[in-house]
């Protein structure tokens, strides 16, 4: 390992556990605790990845998950970030987005064409001619994209988890640790998360040489570990914040949906790049990355380096690197005044040349850009413009950039925080925070570790006060002292371009100029046109510079320029974690197991699973027709437990139902059923069913399978509004319902019930309460399928018993179960519509020929005012029955197929059946009223475009005199 330093205090690697691994097929060795990037850098590997568009060589830049320079594939997993990919024994990784290898990527030729590929080029070049677009698309798909997805890869479902706390603290650096200790000592349930594998934040890289800081860090960590009410979770990323402080946490195993009473964000800042030519060359990295390499992984970032600085951090960095034996050739300080603090003095004492008011103009490389050989530095004039003619060459194999910071503020933005640009720190800082949200530390514009600790305590106390803890002494808000830690414009043009603002998308500074000239002068538009910030690192290192560039182009302030919108997730997360365990519950009737055992073909019907029919999967049509004919000729039994079942009780029950339904119920006799039709306020058909009166103050109501849940909630709403003395109970899942139908149904049932079910004693539309097979039951004489029939409602737990008793008793009569598809056919023959199937969200009663169900002269029912208005308007469509004539050798129409008059749409099919007991195809359709008369021809356009001819018929198709169901 060519670049590994001697052991460093607090290093994250375990030198006693060496690990062998491979990158691009070459074997290397690292240590437990390394990430792939650090291990490769330690082995002298400088090209870790290739850029997205121009395939430029890239190395370590932030070493903090803030850039996407080094994306790798490991087995079937791809787009993994080498900067935070823990090294494992025998790891085999390869770079993504290369042709050949990462060191000799054949697609690097794209870089030579970069001058011909400005932003927006694609939109213009590949738009026309339209016929060539598939070719363009195909070629672009081949070269675009990053890692290749393995379509065969299946990851085990990772269970999501909920969690709760009083205070969530994001970031376990100086501010976060201090906040956690302060809150923990007050007894708050604290969850402290940090995306790194070890806590400490900037203590672990920036302040490693400061004994006082290290001592404080140790004290805080000891206290955090000692307090049971602090849950420290390292390797955990807070990736999104939603309403009411719902925060999505991701770790290796899962996503945790955390609901916190208060959230304190101490997430720090992203160190920002400077923009100069070839600023992406391997060996050029952020100052913080260099320090992370040294202190966390004991890796030398380079042997001879130049520091481009604009703040005190650059000088601390110079001292730090020098201490570790790295030759710092020079500091180029963008500020003409330089650094006057002790940190500056220390650098002078070390004899490091300082070029005040200088920038790096360009970086020099060799071996196709893979090896940094030096930089050309040049002075800046009073306006901050480069003076390249006065440039000087500085040999180096590395550059550390330390010119400023941008807050890691994604969570705060998502939680509703407002930010303001402060020139004192040259960064955005929180201006207003919604209740329960707090910010501390560097994200809050506080830069010294001691002040960050105080700021953490301040925020923790504010959170405790918010959570109702009394008698807490507040700590005044701190402000940054000294020169700004960020430079207002570390961006320098170059005639040869390759001065990248966005490394993910290979966007040059000139691209912004082009965008502005095209008229994109708003930050959101610039983002979309240039794609700045739209790469995998989501603008962490590019958004702030993009804002600065646009502000200058618009001659506007940073505040006026604004920021783009931060949306979850602020870091990429494994999509498998989002999928989690599947919780999409299905409703099953109590007879579900029986149906399966009996060979039913089960089908989804809304939330329910229902038997479609009983029989082989490839004998659907025959099975349904056979079941229908059996019901017409003998007796059948169907599970209709999915029906909505509501109990309406109380002194005002009848009055309530009269207001809900279009019919009358005040004078309804007990033991009698009535059809009920309900509309919404617009007069649209909402629900239908039967209403059984069991006592003067007790009604039993059925509703459609699909609509009963929402109808029940609607009834509860009206109950509140009407203020009537009525109780409504939803018994849909509590009761099972079985429909025994067919000419022999009475003979079967009478064997099992004590109720007199003779035609005289229990007529059509009657309801009786008694027992069936010894089980308490409510029996209703209904005729949905058009035959003599009994709907038997029993407690759900007894459904299997009653069903089996009916089957057993019905065996001599040939009783057979039938499914919901058969029921749909039978009701179609009988001309019964299904609300929500034959009606839609705009159907009002007159269109569906349901005027008969509306009681005249009722003072009020829901939707009555709307219906009065609608009735004055001409009818636009009407539901009719039809039969088909010439279907042989033609595609058979399906539901929703259109009915045409020439090329004009005049209707659509709502229900249709090819095979029926009537021996010809039938259906129902909405048509224009002029076509609603029996005998009117209908032209139905099928899916392939063939026209099938039908003819309007009177409804019902079957038993028009209602003799069968009496």
């Amino acid at each position, binding site marked *: 390992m060519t670049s590994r330093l001697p052991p460093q205090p607090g290093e994250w690697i375990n030198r006693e556990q060496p690990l062998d691994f491979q990158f691009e097929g070459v074997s290397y060795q690292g240590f437990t605790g390394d990430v792939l990037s650090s291990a490769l850098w330690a082995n002298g590997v400088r090209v870790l990845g290739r850029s997205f568009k121009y395939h430029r060589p890239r190395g370590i830049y932030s070493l903090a998950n803030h850039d996407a320079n080094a994306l790798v594939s490991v087995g079937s997993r791809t787009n993994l970030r080498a900067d935070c990919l823990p090294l494992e024994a025998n790891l085999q990784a390869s770079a993504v987005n290369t042709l050949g290898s990462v060191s000799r990527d054949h697609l690097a030729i794209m870089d030579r064409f970069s001058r011909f590929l400005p932003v927006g080029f694609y939109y213009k070049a590949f738009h026309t001619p339209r016929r060539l677009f598939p070719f363009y698309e195909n070629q672009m798909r081949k070269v675009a994209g990053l890692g290749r997805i393995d379509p065969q890869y299946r990851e085990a479902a990772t*269970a*999501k*988890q*909920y*969690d*709760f706390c009083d205070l969530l603290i994001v970031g376990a650096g100086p501010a976060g640790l201090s906040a956690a200790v302060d809150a923990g000592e007050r007894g708050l349930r604290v969850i402290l998360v940090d995306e790194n594998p070890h806590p400490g934040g900037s203590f672990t890289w920036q302040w490693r040489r400061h004994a006082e800081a290290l001592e404080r860090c140790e004290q805080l960590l000891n206290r955090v570990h000692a307090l049971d009410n602090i849950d420290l979770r390292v390797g955990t990323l807070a990736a999104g914040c939603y309403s009411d402080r719902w925060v999505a946490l991701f770790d290796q195993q899962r996503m945790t*949906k955390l*609901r916190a009473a208060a959230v304190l964000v101490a997430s720090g800042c992203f160190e920002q790049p400077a923009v100069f030519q070839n600023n992406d060359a391997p060996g050029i990295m952020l100052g913080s990355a260099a320090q992370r390499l040294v202190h966390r992984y004991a890796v030398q970032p380079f042997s001879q380096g130049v520091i481009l600085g604009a703040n005190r951090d650059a000088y601390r960095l110079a001292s730090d690197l020098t201490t570790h034996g790295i030759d710092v050739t020079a500091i180029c300080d963008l500020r003409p005044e330089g650094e006057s603090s002790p940190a500056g003095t220390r650098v002078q004492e070390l004899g490091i040349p300082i070029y005040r008011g200088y920038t790096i103009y360009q970086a020099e490389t060799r071996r196709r850009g893979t090896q940094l050989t030096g930089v050309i530095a040049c002075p800046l004039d009073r306006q901050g413009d480069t003076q390249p003619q006065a440039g000087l060459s500085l040999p180096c194999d590395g550059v550390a950039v330390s010119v400023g910071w941008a807050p890691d503020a994604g969570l705060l933005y998502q939680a509703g925080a407002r930010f303001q640009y402060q020139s004192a720190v040259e960064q955005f800082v929180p201006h207003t925070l919604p209740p329960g949200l707090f910010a501390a530390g560097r994200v809050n514009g506080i830069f010294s570790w001691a002040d960050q600790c105080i700021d953490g305590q301040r925020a923790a106390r504010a959170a405790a006060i918010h959570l109702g803890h009394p008698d807490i002494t507040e700590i005044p808000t701190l402000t940054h002292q000294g020169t700004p830690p960020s430079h207002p414009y570390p961006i320098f043009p170059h005639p040869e371009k390759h001065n990248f603002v966005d490394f993910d998308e290979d966007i040059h500074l000139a691209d912004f100029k082009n965008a502005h000239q095209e008229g994109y002068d708003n930050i959101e538009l610039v983002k979309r046109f240039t794609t700045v910030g739209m790469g995998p690192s989501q603008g962490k290192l590019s958004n702030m510079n993009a804002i600065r560039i646009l502000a200058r182009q618009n001659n506007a302030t940073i505040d006026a320029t604004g920021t783009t919108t931060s949306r979850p997730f602020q870091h990429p997360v494994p999509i498998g974690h989002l999928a989690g*365990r599947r*919780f*999409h*519950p*299905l*409703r*099953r*009737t*109590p007879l*579900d*197991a029986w149906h399966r055992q009996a060979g039913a073909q089960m089908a989804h019907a809304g939330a*329910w699973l229902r038997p479609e029919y009983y029989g082989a999967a490839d004998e659907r049509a025959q099975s349904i027709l056979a079941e229908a004919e059996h019901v017409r000729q003998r007796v059948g039994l169907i599970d209709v*437990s999915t029906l909505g079942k509501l*109990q309406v*009780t*109380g*002194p005002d029950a009848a009055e309530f139902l009269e207001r809900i339904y279009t019919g009358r119920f005040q004078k309804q006799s007990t033991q009698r059923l009535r059809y009920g039709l309900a509309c919404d306020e617009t007069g649209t058909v909402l629900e239908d069913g039967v209403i059984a009166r069991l006592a003067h*103050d*007790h009604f039993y109501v059925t509703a459609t399978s699909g609509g009963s849940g929402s109808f029940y909630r609607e009834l509860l709403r009206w109950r509140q509004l009407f203020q009537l*003395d009525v*109780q409504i*109970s939803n*018994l*849909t*899942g*509590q*009761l099972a319902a079985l429909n025994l139908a067919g000419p022999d149904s009475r003979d079967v049932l009478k064997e*099992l019930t004590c109720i007199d079910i003779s035609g005289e004693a229990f007529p059509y539309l009657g309801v009786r309460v008694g027992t069936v*097979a*010894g*089980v308490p039951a409510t029996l209703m004489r209904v005729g949905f399928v058009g035959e003599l029939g009994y709907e038997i409602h029993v*407690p*759900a*737990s*007894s*459904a*299997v*018993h009653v069903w089996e*008793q009916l089957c057993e008793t019905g065996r001599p009569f040939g009783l057979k179960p039938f499914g919901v598809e058969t029921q749909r056919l039978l009701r179609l023959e009988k001309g019964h519509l299904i609300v929500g199937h034959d009606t839609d969200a705009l159907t009002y009663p007159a269109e569906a020929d349901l005027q008969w169900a509306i009681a005249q002269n009722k003072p009020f029912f829901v939707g009555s005012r709307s219906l009065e208005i609608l009735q004055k308007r001409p009818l636009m469509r009407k539901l009719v029955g039809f039969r088909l004539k010439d279907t042989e050798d033609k595609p058979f129409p399906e539901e929703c197929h259109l009915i045409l008059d020439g090329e004009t749409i005049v209707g659509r099919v709502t229900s249709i059946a090819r095979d029926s007991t009537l021996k010809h195809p039938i259906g129902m359709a909405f048509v224009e009223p002029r076509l609603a008369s029996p005998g009117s021809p209908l032209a139905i356009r099928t899916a392939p475009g063939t026209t099938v001819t039908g003819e309007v018929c009177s409804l019902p198709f079957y038993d028009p005199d209602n003799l069968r169901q009496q």
Partner: protein
Amino acid sequence: MPLPITRTSPFELPSTPGASRDLAGASLALWFDDPERERQAAQRLALCDLSALPKAGYKGNGATAWLQTHQTPLPAETFESTRLTDGGIIVKVAADEYFLEAGPSGVDLPVPSNGEFPPDCFPVVREDASLVLCGARAAAVLLQVCGYDFSTATLDRVIYTRVAGVDSAVFPAAGYPHTHVKLWCDRSYAVSLWNSLVEICEEFEGPIIGAQALFTDLP
């Protein structure tokens, strides 16, 4: 001719119980494999089907007065509960509505002596699926299926929430020998809920147990 009544559980149990008892026409599994092992499992993590316990609902302005005539100690506030003598539960689910679940000993729930309910008191059929999640790791299971913070929940007070996507009444209960929560849900969703919980419990090595591990005084 009177026929035997058989009530069935909505859940698919893993095997035929080693012992069970008849409870109002339903079979209540007492244990499946080994009673002692199930008792130990109940302390760690286990799932138990109690759907066989008879249930009833009463609703209306007269419900409180009528239940009081049965010497039943009624909860004062909505969502609070009281205990029946055999370990059964009464929950006040609304201002004028009560939900009752009998204990495992077979004591009958209140019914009118003449079969007639007084005016303004209406019986409501309750066939809810009923199960118990018990043991020290029950909380970990709940964290995977429910967004409610049960660490702050009041014992013996019902919470209406969603568990594994199913609307449920959750009842963190005191009185049994082990930490446990009782869950009631609409019977039509029972299989979905049960399957989700079984899957998660299996990952935590929590078996399905019989009622004897929960009700130690059961014969």
